[in-house]
């Protein structure tokens, strides 16, 4: 087992463990912190895939901005572990069972997909994930969606203000 594989499994286990902990944490603040851990693990995966730009954006946007926003809101509401009401046990059970079924079904599908056997994702190599290459494409072929996304941000901003305004 080479370093890449070790790193892959380490990051995967870290991500899944953190994700599970997101679910099981009583306190929302802990959940947010575990989620940040998940995002860091995923960023590690991006780096492993040599998608440096996305790794950085993921850390800045998700782990930085979004999760801080979450934390901010939680603290604003002063939520703690007891804030959440108990859910019916059968509802939890059903949720876990259906999620498990979903996983099993999809995994079995992937298993039987002969097109995927022997296919490798390029790790460590390939330079498309570099900022230079992505930036070229982004500002040439994808410039229109990029500009439209600014409009999206504007409208989201206005929407957030309107919704959050005290009335």
């Amino acid at each position: 087992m080479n370093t890449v594989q070790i790193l892959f499994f380490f990051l995967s286990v870290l991500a899944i463990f953190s994700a599970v902990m997101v679910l099981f944490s009583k306190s929302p603040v802990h959940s947010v912190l575990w989620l940040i851990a998940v995002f860091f693990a995923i960023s590690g995966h991006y780096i492993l895939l040599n998608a440096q730009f996305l790794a950085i954006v993921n850390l800045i946007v998700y782990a930085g901005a979004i999760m801080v926003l979450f934390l901010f809101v939680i603290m604003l509401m002063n939520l703690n572990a007891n804030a959440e009401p108990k859910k019916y046990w059968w509802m939890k059970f059903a949720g876990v069972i259906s999620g498990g079924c979903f996983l099993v079904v999809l995994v079995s599908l992937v298993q039987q997909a002969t097109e995927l056997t022997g296919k490798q994702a390029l790790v460590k190599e390939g330079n498309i994930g570099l900022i230079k290459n992505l930036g070229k494409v982004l500002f040439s072929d994808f410039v229109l969606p990029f500009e439209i996304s600014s409009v999206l941000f504007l409208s989201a901003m206005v929407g957030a203000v309107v919704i959050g305004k005290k009335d």
Partner: protein
Amino acid sequence: MPIQYYIYFCLALFSIGIIGVLTRRNAIIVFMCIELMLNAVNLLLVAFSKLHHGTALAIDPATTVGTDGQLFVFFIMVVAAAEVSVGLAIIVMMYRNTHSVDINFLNRLKN
């Protein structure tokens, strides 16, 4: 790395997100689980982009195949950021009205 590993990993993350959405009642946790599912999809997109890039690279060293996938991830992040801002605003407003973030209060669809 074999592509299946990435798929299994992403499916696991996605399923955990689903289970979280189904089992938790705290709106913020539910929201976080949705983010988790988005990230799983993002990772899968990048993995597939690298898969295609790898196969194309073997033929043409100067190829840019797979750039689209990574840009898609970029746009997903953009949309997710916008979504989170609006979604959190909604949760704040909901908390202000009901003093709870229990999504079971949001059962207006019943009527």
